[in-house]
């Protein structure tokens, strides 16, 4: 399957029956797939007139208690930010897919990881967080789409699955897990008519009295603290004796795994940390599994975004460097290896 198709199938099998979106490269096959697949299972696919409309349709469907998804790429995700803030404020579950491309602005359609800040540090206005997942294989894209819906329901919070054009378009074998594995939990809060619950349900993110707004903020903060405590996910590779630790997610992590293997052949004790949740950032894993690390190198397809979170997690215990390619350029293994050798032989690792 292609990554885009795996998201579509993962969503359908997770019980998602509503999709609102607008085509944009490199995620258009996802809309193409769901346009065909959702009607087969009695679902609704709707191409909205814009991304602003899409996200507000998602707001409506989520408020009525549906499992719902939208997808786009950088420029479209930017248009959705107001809606995302409203959905987070109203505490509604939904899944948003961002297949990143080169930017800023319209940029291009080549693979990129330049939306890390936008996804993990807000993007929209006000105090809120998205849960952000970063798969690095087509199997994981499929599995993680299901998990995204579960996390969204569990925390009543929007969840973003974030990858890039390579992940979206590449093909890998996928084992499709059993259908109906996901049970959709009851939603007593949904504005779905008054037949199944007493009293009115109100979906809202507008609190004109500051005291009331702050109460909501406190409640949200408690929720985010719990997510940070319980949902950090990360993968380590050859970390035990690693003196130089690479940190990379998504496409870059696949390349870095090859780099670590090449470095080991040269006698350099390199390891890899792959954050799977970008928010919450797996700071505990970074701090707890890198006892021998003498330096860190983050490899990103941007000018240096995740490196800030790595620095916070490392907390001054070792220097943290960044290697990045931008604008849709993909880092090459031999260039990263050269960077690793430079750090190792240049005296940073003693």
């Amino acid at each position, binding site marked *: 399957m*292609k990554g885009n198709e795996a998201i579509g199938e993962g969503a359908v099998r997770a019980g998602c029956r509503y999709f609102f979106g607008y085509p944009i*490269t490199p995620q258009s*096959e996802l809309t193409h797939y769901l346009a065909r697949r959702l009607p087969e299972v009695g679902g609704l696919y709707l191409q909205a007139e814009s991304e602003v409309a899409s996200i507000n349709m998602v707001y409506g469907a989520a408020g009525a208690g549906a499992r719902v998804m939208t997808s786009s790429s950088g420029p479209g995700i930017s248009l959705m930010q107001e809606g995302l803030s409203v959905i987070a404020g109203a505490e509604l579950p939904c899944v948003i897919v961002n297949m990143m491309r080169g930017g800023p602005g319209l940029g*291009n359609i080549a693979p990129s990881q330049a939306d890390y800040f936008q996804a993990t540090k807000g993007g929209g206005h006000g105090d809120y967080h998205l849960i952000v997942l970063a798969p690095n294989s087509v199997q994981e894209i499929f599995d993680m789409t299901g998990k995204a819906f579960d996390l969204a329901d569990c925390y009543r919070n929007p969840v973003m699955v974030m990858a890039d*054009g390579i992940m979206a*378009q590449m093909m890998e*074998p996928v084992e499709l897990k059993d259908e109906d594995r996901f049970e959709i939990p009851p939603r007593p809060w949904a504005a779905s008519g008054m037949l199944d619950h007493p009293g009115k349900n109100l979906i809202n993110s507008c609190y004109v009295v500051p005291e009331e707004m702050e109460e909501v903020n406190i409640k949200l903060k408690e929720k985010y603290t719990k997510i940070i405590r319980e949902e950090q996910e990360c993968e380590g590779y050859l970390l035990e004796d690693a003196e130089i630790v690479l940190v990379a997610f998504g496409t870059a992590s696949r390349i870095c795994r*090859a780099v670590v293997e090449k470095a080991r052949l040269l006698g350099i004790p390199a390891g890899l940390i792959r954050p799977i949740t970008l928010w919450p950032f797996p700071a505990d894993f970074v701090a707890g599994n890198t006892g021998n690390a003498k330096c860190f190198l983050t490899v990103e397809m941007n000018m240096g975004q995740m490196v800030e979170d790595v620095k916070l997690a490392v907390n001054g215990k070792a220097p943290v460097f960044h290697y990045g390619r931008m604008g849709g350029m993909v880092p090459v293994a031999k260039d990263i290896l050269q960077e690793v050798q430079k750090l190792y032989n240049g005296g940073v690792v003693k």
Partner: protein
Amino acid sequence: MEDPKHISIFTGAFGSGKTELALNYALKLQETGKKVTAVDLDIINPYFRIRSVREALEVRGLNVVSPCGRLAGADVPALPPAILGVLDDSRGYGVLDVGGDDIGATVLGRFKGNLRDGSFNLYFVVNTYRTHTRDVPGILSIMRRIEKASRLQVSALISNPNLGPETNLETILGGHRIVMDAAQQLGLPVALLGVHRKLAGRLKIRDVPIFPLDLLLKLPWQDD
């Protein structure tokens, strides 16, 4: 591969392996001393197209026609005028890689007038491990839609059953059987069975010529 037509067109569902087959076919044809041009007609999907390996192919002496310069990386339906030159040059051989599904095949309709009867083969590449071509009805449905969109008739199927790196002999045999069934129902021949070179020698199939494939479109973490 015996007595190839002047023009060979590769169509199929999204991700069926058209590009790899077309490129391997073009290189093989070139090895026999013919003048061959590979034409990138994929205006649907901006990733993993011929143009992304253009330089490597040109080094090997293959002519490549694909949108040039700034247009190469854009998702716009740009068709270079040199395509008509390839179709008109009766001494040369053209290998056309078309975009996936009926949407991708629509572009062929524009060249219908330039394709003389009997001068071309329209291949329909099938990987039975892809979502929409897992069984005979699925294969027939996509093939009919491609024929309708391109306003051309498929001349032969190409069997390409694989699960990428997890392919084994059993995978191939199981998938190939479905392609043969589909071909029988359609009354069409199966021209080739595409198999990764490392498995090709171990495969015992007599009904269709085995076509060993060297994969050319690689991911950034895959070694040469």
